[in-house]
């Protein structure tokens, strides 16, 4: 049999698919992904029930109900992605399985890309679960198509941002606890601008914060499309923040991937 080292190097093209395959199997067949998705479904059911009830009492207009449900769906779906990404490398490090992975000739970036694909599958599953809820809440007001498409676009953008961010933290974190804590802390910080007093949200600094923060910007864009009925290009400026964030964290994750090491930290 030919030795492996005599074969042409297939590099990352092959390796990322191998890693993604194993990670997807672990996630969805190994029992980690399904409980998370079940919890997500329950949350979405409760949210939908509450907004539908409010609709009945005329507290919420139907478009607002769809927007609110979608915002919850996108935010929590992205949170699932962050949990998956933040556990990906530091979890292997903690379980002692990282060394055998690093001993393979697969480029480090390929390892991380494979893990990113698995983490993003959580968002894909969450989005699919959200579709029937959107249909139920939005039927009759012509918002279902826009809501489904825009939630896919915005949610995917936020998921990409969080997967890059989670992987970057997980790559350098020395323990899984640190990785998950830091990731969740930053996610909470990203929600903070939504808690600003209304007056401050309309000040220039508030507006800037809302636009720069990828989370608030993405969710605002979603609201403008669904509630205000704006066209996709009309408020596209709100997507600049999330897009820049995706580019920055992806670049950071790829740079850190090249320095991925056994103990965490940044190896130069």
């Amino acid at each position, binding site marked *: 049999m030919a030795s492996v080292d005599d074969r*042409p*190097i297939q590099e990352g093209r092959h390796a990322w698919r191998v890693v993604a395959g194993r990670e997807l199997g672990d996630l969805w067949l190994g*029992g980690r992904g399904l409980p998370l998705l079940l919890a997500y479904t329950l949350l979405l059911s409760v949210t939908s029930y509450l907004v539908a009830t409010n609709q009945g009492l005329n507290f919420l207009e139907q478009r607002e109900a769809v927007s609110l449900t979608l915002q919850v769906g996108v935010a929590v779906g992205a949170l699932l992605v962050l949990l998956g990404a933040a556990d990906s490398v530091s979890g292997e490090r903690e379980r*002692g*399985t990282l*060394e*055998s992975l690093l001993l*393979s000739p697969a480029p480090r970036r390929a390892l991380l890309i494979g893990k990113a694909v698995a983490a993003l599958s959580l968002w894909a599953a969450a989005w699919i679960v959200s579709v029937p809820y959107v249909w139920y809440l939005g039927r009759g007001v012509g918002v279902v198509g826009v809501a489904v498409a825009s939630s896919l676009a915005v949610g995917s953008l936020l998921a990409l941002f969080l997967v890059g961010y989670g992987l970057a933290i997980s790559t350098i974190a020395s323990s899984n606890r640190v990785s998950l804590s830091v990731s969740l802390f930053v996610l909470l910080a990203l929600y903070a601008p939504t808690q600003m007093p209304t007056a401050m949200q309309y000040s220039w600094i508030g507006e800037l914060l809302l636009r720069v923060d990828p989370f608030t910007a993405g969710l605002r864009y979603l609201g403008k499309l669904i509630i205000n009925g704006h066209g996709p290009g009309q408020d596209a400026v709100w997507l600049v923040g999330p897009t820049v964030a995706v580019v920055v964290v992806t670049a950071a994750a790829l740079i850190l991937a090249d320095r991925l*090491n056994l103990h965490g930290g940044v190896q130069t």
Partner: protein
Amino acid sequence: MPEGLALQAKGLRKAYRGVGAVESLDLEVEAGTVLGFLGPNGAGKTTVIRMLSTILRPDAGWFTVAGIPHDQPIQIRRRVGVLPESAGYPPGQTGRDWLTFHAELFGRSRGDARATARRLLAEVGLAERGGSLISGYSRGMRQRLGIARALVNDPRVVFLDEPTFGLDPMGQLQVLELMGRVAREHGVTVVLSTHLLAEVEQACDRVLILHRGRIVAQGTVAEVARRAAAPRRGLVKIPPELRDRALEVLAASAVLAVAAHGDRRGQVVVSTPAGVAPERAASLALGSLLEAGVPVLGFAMEGGRLSDAFLAVTEDADGQRR
């Protein structure tokens, strides 16, 4: 690089936060060698293995593995197999799936990877348990699975870092037999890091003793045992009533320091003075006793085993540092 060298290192150095783990290590290991890599805890063995397998980057120095220079880590990883110290295993996967995954990471197709996994599981005696979840494996089975993983790429050099750690005597025996078979049948160079000195004496061609990040002895097992643990003491058995006479004779020989051995009046312990070969010292001692008419009922030199060498060189190194 000289031909036939599986490993070569020069001036390898690694420190963690300013504390030296490996200090200017020079190393040459010929292809096909089974090298026993010894040293007390914290000697730097794992750090050396991690550097040579490109998991850690050295702070200084260079090395080659199977002729590949250290600045080509991916090529080196294609040629080495490693059983890491305290390796982890995914409990939710079967042994077969886990091996298949790693074989695929080395560029094998899915079919080839599955065939490789089956072959290796049979080789390490896990053919019947390959389809079971790793969570149900004993520690010994996991170690054998780890050795199988180290072979998925048909490596030229295999590093086994404490493969018998935590195993019962039967498990240790199985792993060491497996290691010997791997070395013979695959024709690979094996670097075995272990604390089991007796097994190293039996299984290894050469031995290297590392202490505080420095090599304190290396060579064949016999060379190291002889050089580093040359017998320093001997026990002479004589008739108890002639003990005082024997002590006088030995003291007069000016070759050996003499000490009575506790309350055992029929025994005398002789020590080799510095600068005198142990064999010559023993001959002189025994000759002078016989010439003086003291019958020698028995004589044994202590030392000369690898375990003695290990203790001697590590204690010497500690003494020099003090």
